[in-house]
């Protein structure tokens, strides 16, 4: 509960109204669920409670989690980006071609980041300059970006990555934690500060609460949204570097279907799809919760597609549950 301060009290209050009294906040509810899943996992599989298992498990969600952080900001300002997975694919393709031409790691990473950011800027410009709903824009760019990778790659794969490139996705820090995971934790702190402790963050909430009011109080709403979309693009580039480095190759189907997982992380984390509320702490806990569920099921040999059923059920039930409880509470009061 350390994040309750006078600054964002209003947000927490509005959120608490919809929750029954014994659940202090969405974050603690999520945290409790995560703890329960953790305990269940310990009993379900003897291999779970092992430092290496847990460390390896972080590779599974770190890349998606890196995209979930900026996407949370985009959803807070009432927009959405479902083209994220396609951006990852396109920037991975760019890196593949640069790697083919020269083995320079800086050049490879730079290419990935630039292409990712450019894709984000395209989304942002279409949304802000032409005033098109972001869901339509990103449905379009989702197939456009993925389509371009199909045109460029066809049924081939790019795999001329230099050996040292492998560190981003496969490297370990302190000989135990994956580099990806540490980097994600670092980013989570940065985003927490950005959203909860800076003007930029306050503006983000203001726009999400009421874009019109924000506009009239002097916030450049469109510029802010453009920056957020570009940020998502940039971090898709970052995630793409890690994923490409981890897989060691680029295929047109890379990161296919990730948008579902990433949006689930954000929404599960208590970010309202209607905008204006949500916190990075919630998103981070939701990421861990999803990671724990996936690892536990993976250890029990549950196929990926069945996992997607469970993630889908989780997404709906976790949002529906507090509403059901609140309804029940109102009824009993009457």
């Amino acid at each position, binding site marked *: 509960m350390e994040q309750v301060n006078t600054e964002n009290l209003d947000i927490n209050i509005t959120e608490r109204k919809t929750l029954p009294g014994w659940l202090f906040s969405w974050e603690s509810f999520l945290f409790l669920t995560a703890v329960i899943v953790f305990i269940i996992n310990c009993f379900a599989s003897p291999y779970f409670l092992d430092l290496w298992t847990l460390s390896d498990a972080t590779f599974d969600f770190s890349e998606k989690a890196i995209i979930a952080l900026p996407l949370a900001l985009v959803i807070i300002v009432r927009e*959405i980006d479902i083209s994220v997975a396609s951006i990852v694919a396109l920037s991975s393709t760019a890196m593949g071609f640069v790697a083919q031409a020269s083995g320079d790691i800086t050049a490879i990473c730079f290419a990935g980041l630039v292409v990712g950011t450019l894709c984000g800027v395209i989304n942002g410009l*279409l949304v802000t300059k*032409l*005033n*098109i*709903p972001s*869901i*339509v*824009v990103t*449905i*379009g*760019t*989702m*197939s*456009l*970006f*993925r*389509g*371009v990778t*199909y*045109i460029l790659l*066809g049924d081939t794969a790019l795999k001329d990555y230099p050996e040292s490139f492998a560190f981003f996705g496969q490297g370990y820090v302190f000989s135990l934690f994956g580099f990806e995971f540490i980097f994600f934790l670092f980013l989570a702190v940065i985003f927490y500060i950005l959203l909860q402790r800076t003007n930029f963050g306050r503006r983000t909430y203001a726009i999400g609460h009421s874009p019109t009011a924000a506009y*009239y109080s002097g916030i450049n709403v469109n510029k802010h949204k453009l920056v957020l979309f570009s940020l998502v693009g940039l971090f898709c580039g970052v995630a793409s570097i890690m994923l490409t480095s981890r897989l060691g190759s680029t295929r047109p189907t890379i990161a296919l279907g990730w948008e*579902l997982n990433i*949006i*689930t992380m954000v*929404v599960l984390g208590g970010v309202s*799809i*209607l905008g204006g509320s949500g916190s990075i702490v919630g998103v981070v806990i939701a990421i861990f919760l999803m990671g724990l569920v996936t690892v536990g099921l993976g250890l029990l040999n549950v*196929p990926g*597609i*069945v996992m*997607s*059923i469970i*993630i*889908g*059920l989780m*997404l*709906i039930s976790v*949002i*529906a549950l507090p*509403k*059901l409880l609140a309804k029940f509470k109102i009824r009993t009061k009457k």
Partner: protein
Amino acid sequence: MKNLLKNRETQLSIVVVMLLVIIGLTIPDFLALSNLLSVYNDTSILIILALGQMVVIITRCIDLSVAANVALTGMVVATVNSMYPDLPVPVIILMGACLGTILGMINGWLVWKMNIPAIVVTLGTMSIYRGTVFLISKGAWINAHQMSETFLAIPRFELLGLPILGWCSIMVVAGMYYFMRYRQLGRKIYAAGNSPTAAYYIGIDVGKKQFIAFTISGLLAGIASYLWISRYAVAYTDIANGFELQVIAACVIGGVSIAGGKGTVVGCLLGALFLGIINNALPVIGISPFWQMAISGGVIIIAVIANSLSERKPGRIILRKAVQNAS
């Protein structure tokens, strides 16, 4: 005359005809009546699904689970047919329609009673439905030889040169045109999407209209699922994967506004035909199928840009000038 030209449907028909002329100049055979009919027949399923999606989008929602609904219902239909080949096909179709409707109602109920945004609900049910297909089939395929002959033959049966599949979509188009234009419920759906507050004050239950919209989308997906399975004569987990994007694209191209309350059956039909013609023409012109995805993405973006430019109003600028002066 000027009004007619400004009409979205007229503009779209001109674009579609121009597209046909351009393709016809390269490949004259493409414009043969038999080929045009087969292109229409090929687009039928997209048309049916797009009309369901249109109703949902008009009520300010979105249904991302249509393709998964088609896959799940289709898998059930195919499984039933392979297990009980003697069961009459109409019974199977009815079953498919019912199951599709139920799946649509689940979406609608969650949106209506639980008040969860449609995009979240359908994103969730999309993966739930798709996963359930895998649970039912255990990953196995159901191939043509496991299905009964009548099951496969019905949509292929030709009536006046057009297979039943094509006639089905014509019937759906006619039915939806009548429903959305002349039935009270259809008008109420437009009203609920156009301005939920105003609709509420004149006594329209907006949530219920959204529920009905999802039910219609589910029903049409159920019907489309039988047509899909029998047309392609195979059922597997990944069937129609990603098709929801094409369906939404058809709506967007057809001028259905994602902001709700706007969109017509004819526009939606033209949007679907536009995509169908492109999809069918690409291989004929000799463009690699790898281009298809990027082209449909590009078309969506161009269509929404055109939409937004045509909808742009001079607007009531009160403070804009002051803001510009100040900065």
